[in-house]
């Protein structure tokens, strides 16, 4: 992980650690903090705890987002501290969810904009002048356009990939595919490295091809405290605890010292959490039915 982040993430970059509630690469976010990256523009539909931690650690200059909260719990207090009142210092560029998805899609497809039927009669285009109304070239229809988003780096956590970076995801797919294809560089972080045969046995499940992947990092529980479908549940206790930690700048600093700067990497973080806590997050089993692709020769 240290090598992948050092090689792909540079000060001033636009970084997208995607994953909608599911499969959020906290492991990569923590490594970015440990390497003291600076002036990053952080893009994500839902900044979640990981960007609250990264903003609290001082790596970010700007957020590009569509929903800023601790899902199911409340606010992101480190972000709020630098976005409220006269001392607001973090730059915000905000959209709706579909606007963000459209931005990645335009980026992935090499298009100059993405049209959508959102934003009518709202204050969002006033707050963010990059959201612009356009007329259809085929009639009078009014739609809104959002510009392409092409992150320097997209970091995607997944259940499994092979050594070439062919990556399979199940459960919520969010907009990882769009973000990965839009990015200049892609880092994939997986629960499990598998052989090429495993990938080829179920090609419909491949979301990101190795073709666009720069680095594959194996990091079990790398999405903790978020979750990985079929592997572990969200550690909701931490999402609740984070509310109190992030309200207090000193507590947040202590937390970073202990859980980010104070560990060499994810293996030490896992050891520190302990098997009992991690085992309690493992779900019961609900396997997919299998399909027969057929053998054609």
């Amino acid at each position, binding site marked *: 992980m240290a090598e992948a982040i050092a090689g792909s993430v540079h000060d001033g970059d636009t970084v997208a650690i995607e994953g909608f509630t599911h499969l959020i690469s906290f492991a990569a976010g923590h490594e970015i903090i440990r390497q003291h990256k600076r002036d990053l523009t952080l893009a994500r539909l839902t900044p979640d705890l990981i960007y609250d931690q990264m903003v609290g650690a001082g790596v970010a200059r700007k957020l590009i987002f569509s929903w*800023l909260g601790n899902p199911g719990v409340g606010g992101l207090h480190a972000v709020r501290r630098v976005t409220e009142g006269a001392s607001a210092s973090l730059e915000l560029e*905000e959209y709706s969810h579909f606007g963000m*998805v459209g931005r990645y899609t335009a980026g992935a497809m090499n298009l100059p904009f993405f049209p959508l039927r959102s934003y*009518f009669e709202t204050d*969002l285009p006033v707050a963010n002048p990059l959201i612009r109304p356009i007329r259809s070239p085929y009639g009078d229809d009014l739609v809104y356009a959002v510009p392409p988003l092409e992150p320097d780096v997209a970091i995607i956590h997944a259940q499994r990939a092979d050594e070439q970076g062919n990556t399979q995801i199940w459960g919520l797919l969010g907009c990882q595919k769009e973000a990965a294809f839009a990015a200049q560089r892609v880092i994939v972080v997986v629960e499990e490295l598998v052989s090429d045969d495993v990938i080829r046995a179920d090609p419909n499940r491949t979301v990101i091809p190795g073709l666009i992947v720069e680095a594959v990092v194996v990091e079990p529980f790398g999405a903790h405290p978020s979750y990985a479908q079929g592997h572990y549940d969200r550690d909701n206790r931490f999402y609740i605890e984070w509310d109190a930690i992030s309200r207090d700048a000193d507590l947040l600093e202590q937390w970073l010292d202990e859980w980010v700067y104070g560990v060499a990497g994810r293996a030490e973080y896992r050891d520190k959490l302990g098997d009992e806590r991690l085992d309690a997050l493992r779900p019961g089993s609900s396997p997919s039915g299998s399909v027969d692709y057929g053998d054609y020769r």
Partner: protein
Amino acid sequence: MSPPEPVEAADFSASEMMIVAAARELAGRHVCFVGVGLPNIAVNLAKLTVATDLELVYEAGVFGARPARLPLSIGDPTIVTRATAVTSMFELFGFYLQGGLIDVGFLGAAQIDRFGNINSTVIGDYAHPTTRLPGSGGACEIAINAREVFVIMRQSRRSFVHRIDFRTSPGNLGGADGARIRREQGWLGAGPSVVITDLGVYHFDAGGVMRLDSLHPGVTLEDVQGKMAWLPAVADRLIETAPPTAEELRLVRDVLDTEGIYTR
């Protein structure tokens, strides 16, 4: 459903009444886009009571969810296992929502005005807000593209305001013109049709203005007027909301919200 058993007003909380009243409004609806927070529990209660065929749609990319526990958030893994379909967010927002397949979008809000316009972005000035709220998420496009919109929120003078600080999700705009503007601009949605609070239930009149139709048990008109910034239009025949049945309360307390996160 079994016939309602009488439950005394002292035996349920205002939040429980709000959730139960919200769930009942979904009777007869088919496809519901479930918003963050209170809508989540209200819609899941409806699925267990008045709308057992309801298709739950989550913006995270799920159609036809069958959650085995109350989802902790709208991205909980329990909405995936045994769902009808899991899609990318591109498909969910593009094909299902913007494609016109959503009957009801169920939203929460920080501020609402008498026309059902919603703010979930900031309190105060946008550049230097006193409170930075989460922002749109999918709410802006749900308010425009869902065929109708239900809103559930706790009522106070700070939340039911003359003028919202930021329009995140359009409702009936300025009132009577709202329907015309929606039509002319080609929006699929007809806008908000019901607002459920901890005090009562509102629908909208022909002019697009919120009208109090029902007071929850034990709540007076004065209580309601004390918790909103405008003088509400009131139905000619203002009724009392039927109290929660024992079964509705059991589902809320013992099945959906066992930790009292939404109902405290």
